[in-house]
């Protein structure tokens, strides 16, 4: 790999802003190009035509989970420094964007985030200081968050186009499943605590427990299509009760 000193670090740090210009046309493309700019300017700065072509292939359409975009950034950094053919780099980006999106969504949004948040909510409902629950959540969540970004970037930088094998070997999907089971355990604990103790107001009155069980089942069976309608309906219900209380 060409000697690019601290440039990979700059690329990695810029990855924290990769979604800054997210749009429906190129999605992460503009941000991907932004993150790679210091490297591309160093490699091709003296040849405006090569720089322009490098920018074209990196602001083009791309999408991935923001944390796992570090894998692609690291790998592309390696490939550009090694002088890989542009077409190979394009094909690599096209090949990884789906897996990096799906894997990230499953591991982070559907496993790590809800599980750590549920743990923090349990601590909060148990009566611990707000700051304990807050610091716990931010510290534990971001430990995993930063580990994933740093690991992903380093693996990409080390293996380049061969990084796909590393991703398979890391069994991230299996880790996601294990974390989700823990998340469901914590969800059960939280629900039990809320039924028995409310939020420090004593046991939740039975009519609300019954309503809650019904709504829980509706949410479980109807899925995402029910959330938007339910959120709007609940907001209207609260507004209606408030207005009734003010008028009557």
């Amino acid at each position: 790999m060409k000697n690019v000193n601290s440039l990979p670090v700059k690329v990695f740090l810029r990855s924290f802003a990769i979604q800054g210009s997210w749009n429906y046309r190129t999605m992460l493309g503009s941000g991907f190009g932004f993150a790679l700019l210091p490297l591309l300017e160093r490699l091709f700065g003296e040849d405006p035509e090569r720089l322009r072509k490098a920018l074209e292939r990196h602001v083009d359409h791309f999408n991935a989970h923001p944390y796992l975009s570090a894998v692609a950034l690291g790998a592309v950094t390696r490939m550009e420094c090694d002088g890989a053919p542009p077409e190979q780099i394009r094909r690599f980006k096209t090949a990884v964007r789906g897996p990096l999106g799906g894997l990230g969504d499953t591991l982070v949004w559907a496993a790590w985030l809800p599980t750590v948040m549920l743990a923090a909510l349990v601590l909060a409902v148990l009566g611990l200081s707000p700051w304990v629950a807050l610091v716990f959540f931010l510290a534990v969540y971001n430990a995993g968050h930063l580990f994933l970004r740093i690991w992903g970037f380093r693996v990409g930088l080390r293996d380049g186009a061969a990084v796909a094998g590393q991703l398979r070997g890391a069994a991230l999907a299996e880790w996601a499943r294990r974390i989700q089971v823990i998340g469901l355990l914590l969800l059960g604990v939280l629900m039990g605590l809320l039924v028995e103790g409310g939020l420090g107001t004593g046991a939740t009155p039975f009519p609300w427990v019954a309503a809650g069980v019904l709504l829980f089942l509706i949410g479980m069976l109807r899925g995402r299509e029910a959330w938007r309608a339910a959120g709007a309906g609940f907001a209207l219900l609260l507004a209606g009760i408030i207005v009734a209380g003010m008028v009557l």
Partner: protein
Amino acid sequence: MELILLASLLALGVAAALDGTSLFQAMLSRPFVAATLAGALVGSATSGMLAGIILELFFLPVVPVGGGRFAEGGPAGVVAGATAGWVAVPAGLVPAVLLGLVVGGLGGASIRILRRVNGRFVPDPLAGTLSPREVRRAHGMGLLLDALRGGIVTALGLAVAYLGAPLAAAGWRLDAPHTIGLLLAGAALPLGLVVANLRGVRPAGFLALGVGLGAGVLLGLVLP
């Protein structure tokens, strides 16, 4: 409202909005976090946290996946936490959660608008005239507009909260257990959605859910 307090709440709203998708994504934008911090700014972290817990239950299945539609939790949490801090709980929790849901929807709609706007000035790879300056400018513009958007959404929510929340809480007739019960019952549907999203881990997941439920009930009975 003091100017310093308003500026602090707006700054928190902007930071939470940026953290939601554009920058870091360190989860300052989660309702639980944003509401607790907003409540602390207003003078009651505990009230902010209570609003944050309930709102977080609603937002638990909401994640910023790709080009999907999602409600925005950061400014929603700030408004909810500030509201709960301004108006005594538990009555204050009702306008807090209500405003949180509304601001969340408003924030989500504004993100979709922003993304369409971003599409108008991000570099076109087919234009043949790309330059590093153009890439930097487009990205910087996206970040700036997101900050502005987050500030506007937060400001609107805070204005309604400051003017209307005390009136709304004064009109609330239910006592504390029934108020919390109603709010938690409403939050049960999104919790069911969380389980629906995790259907891939049956049956171990359902077993864990059941064990956890039993443990939670026992803890609730045993603990003071």
